[in-house]
């Protein structure tokens, strides 16, 4: 039986990228567990380690892919994924659905709405050329429109998708989508000490609530703060620590899931506060839970949908630092931490274990294969129509159809364009 050909788009060389982490974690399992089933070709934006994304469509024409699999996040290293999604729609795994930029060219002037309409046969005309197309943001309307199948690593994003998205290739009422949590990376237990060691990976910016955390720590004794930051954030981080008079801390650089695992190995608990519609908590929260670390989250957006049976939640606002402080005091009890840890590990292993995630991704591919093949067929037809349109237009630039036919047409044929 022919293998399912998958064009898998992933950034490379960006250790902070969720997409890269997911690819590095799940691909080896997929390749091993389903080696007879999948023929996976990696595409990135370099020529050294993988195939370049600009070769994907010509490869597809020679030997078709069944699935184009994209991961989307609000990160520069994923810009090429955002671009290519508009060239060839597919299955999109959203790690972010709110973007802080409209993206690179050619997205800035993308006629995506017209293209989606045309692909759904709601419109016959091609978009007007050289026309400034208004891009709505910051929600990923364009990217959602090109997702033949939408998968989300955060339930909050999936809810937003269902609420906001109307225009989609493979239109119609069926807005099916999937939640596929990110896999966690296991960390070891911390060595016992007299202080409560706290792991944190938020940026030194207000939405990440570090000011509330540091205030809480400053009002509590025997706390040690392990903070994972980017090198560029160090000055700001140190200023904040000094401002809140937090003297027992350790800074780790750079922010990545691997490094987070190291931080967790030196920590008893983890804090994942975020008061913003942008960004998400994964895969850091999954790594904390799978490592059995009692965790504190903000009850908003990404954090809202985690059960209070497995995490502690704080309400953002005036009493936020007080809430954090009380939870920290509660968690000083080693026995309680151990009890929570067992419960959390058991839950996390069921849902965030990489083997489980790989199997679920396989199920999604199985369930949606026919749908994406229909999408590919429709898109191939659209591209064929695009080529016909280009050929039909060509004589108008010469100004004389007869001259074009006599002098140029044979060369179009010879070059394989006709």
């Amino acid at each position, binding site marked *: 039986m022919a293998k399912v050909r998958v064009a898998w788009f992933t950034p490379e060389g960006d250790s902070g990228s969720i997409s890269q982490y997911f690819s590095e974690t799940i691909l080896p399992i997929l390749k091993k567990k389903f080696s007879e089933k999948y023929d996976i070709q990696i595409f990135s934006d370099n020529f050294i380690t993988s195939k*370049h994304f600009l070769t994907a*469509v*010509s490869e597809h024409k020679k030997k078709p892919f069944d699935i184009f699999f994209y991961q989307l996040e609000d990160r520069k290293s994923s810009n090429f994924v955002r671009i290519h999604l508009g060239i060839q729609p597919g299955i999109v795994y959203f790690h972010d659905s709110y973007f802080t930029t409209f993206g690179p060219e050619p997205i800035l002037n993308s006629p995506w709405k017209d293209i989606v309409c045309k692909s759904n046969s709601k419109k016959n005309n091609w978009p007007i050329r050289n026309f400034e197309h208004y891009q709505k943001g910051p929600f990923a309307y364009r990217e959602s429109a090109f997702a033949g199948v939408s998968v989300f690593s955060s339930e909050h994003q999936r809810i937003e998708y269902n609420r906001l998205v109307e225009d989609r290739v493979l239109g119609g009422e069926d807005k099916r989508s999937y939640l596929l949590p990110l896999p966690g990376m296991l960390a070891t237990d911390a060595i016992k000490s007299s202080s409560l060691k706290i792991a944190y990976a938020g940026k030194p910016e207000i939405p990440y609530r570090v000011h509330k955390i540091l205030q809480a720590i400053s009002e509590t004794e025997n706390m040690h703060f392990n903070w994972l930051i980017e090198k560029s954030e160090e000055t700001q981080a140190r200023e904040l620590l000094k401002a809140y008079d937090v003297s027992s801390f350790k800074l780790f650089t750079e922010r990545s899931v691997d490094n987070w695992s190291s931080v967790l190995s030196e920590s008893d608990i983890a804090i994942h506060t975020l008061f913003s519609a942008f960004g998400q908590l994964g895969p850091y929260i999954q790594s904390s839970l799978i490592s059995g670390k009692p965790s504190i989250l903000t009850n908003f957006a990404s954090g809202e949908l985690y059960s209070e049976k497995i995490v502690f939640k704080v309400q953002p606002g005036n009493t936020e630092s007080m809430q954090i402080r009380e939870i920290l005091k509660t968690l000083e009890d080693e026995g309680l931490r151990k009890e929570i840890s067992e419960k959390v590990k058991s839950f996390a292993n069921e849902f965030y274990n990489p083997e489980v995630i790989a199997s679920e991704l396989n199920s999604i591919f199985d369930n949606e294969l026919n749908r994406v093949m229909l999408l590919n067929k429709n898109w191939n037809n659209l591209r064929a129509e695009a080529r016909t349109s280009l050929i039909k237009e060509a004589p108008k630039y010469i100004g004389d159809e007869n001259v074009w036919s006599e002098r140029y047409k044979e060369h179009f044929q010879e070059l394989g364009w006709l």
Partner: protein
Amino acid sequence: MANILVLGVKIPFTGGGQVVLVNSLVKELKGRGHLVDVVELPHRVEPKENLLNEIAMWRALDLREFGGRKVDLVIATKFPSYFAKHPKKSLWLVHQHRDMYDNFGTRYSSFSDDPRDDELRDMLKVGDDKAISECSFVSGISKNVVTRLKNYNGIEGVHLYPPLSQGDKYYNNEPEDYILSVNRLCSIKRIDLIIKALPIIHNHIKLKIVGTADEPHVEDYFKNEIDKHHLWDRVEFLGRVTDEELLSLYAKSLAVFYGPYNEDYGYGTLEAFASSKPVVTCPDSGGVLEFVRDMENGLILEPNTDSIGHGVNKLVEDKDLAIKLGLQGRADIEKLDLLTSGWDEVVEGLLSPLNNTKVAANG
């Protein structure tokens, strides 16, 4: 001796490195006793859909014989001249249509995610693969250009650096208080980087800009930036200058700013070095980096205002450093034979199809 046609591409009313390259090549070939002429067709970047017709135009040319003289060899240079058919075709590639390759996805490309644009990209790429594979000898003007060809089209080529056309005429004078920029005025040359850095650069330093615009609105953009920072007493647009004026401008400059985005080759680098002047460039300037080494013969600075401003100030505050870097630049290109000699290798490569048996299409 052979009858040779050099195939060039011209955007009317503009100049640039391509013109210099073709003229220099013709001069060198004639100097070696060959009968040489140039075939140039006009080129328009927009509307990009018409590129298909431009390619067909080149394809339709019969270049085998003129006035009873058989054409022994054609040498193609820039896209889309290499689409011409001839039994013996050499390629000295200046660049392909970069909008669909390395510039795709940047603000320098006009290709969007409209399926028509992507089909066009696919058709042009298929055309490139075919036309360039027909060449009996494939080369590019820099490692950057041949690397692109290998990466995007899977075609191997050798790099043959074009030597300077008047290499023996460049000279060096005591540096005066200005930075020189010599380039076509268009966005990809990023002259705005040095304009925007001027407020950080010491006040007595001026910026002299040689070149004319070949892109709509770019001059307005530069003028807005100059207005915004009240720099009119420090910036001078010189437009086109004579060869003598250009040599003098180079000779008296403190340094040359040359920071384009992913440049193919960059004659400006060689001209600066020939005048013993350091080059200020950026880490994403492509072919320029095949010659410039940071703090050895120039400065490689991040493409932002702060970095360039403070970097240039290093040269302003330490003229001995600027002189030292410039002299090293001169020594470097002398060693590479890019001043007065160096054409033998280029000509030998380009003329090699006259001696080998590879048969190109339309034979």
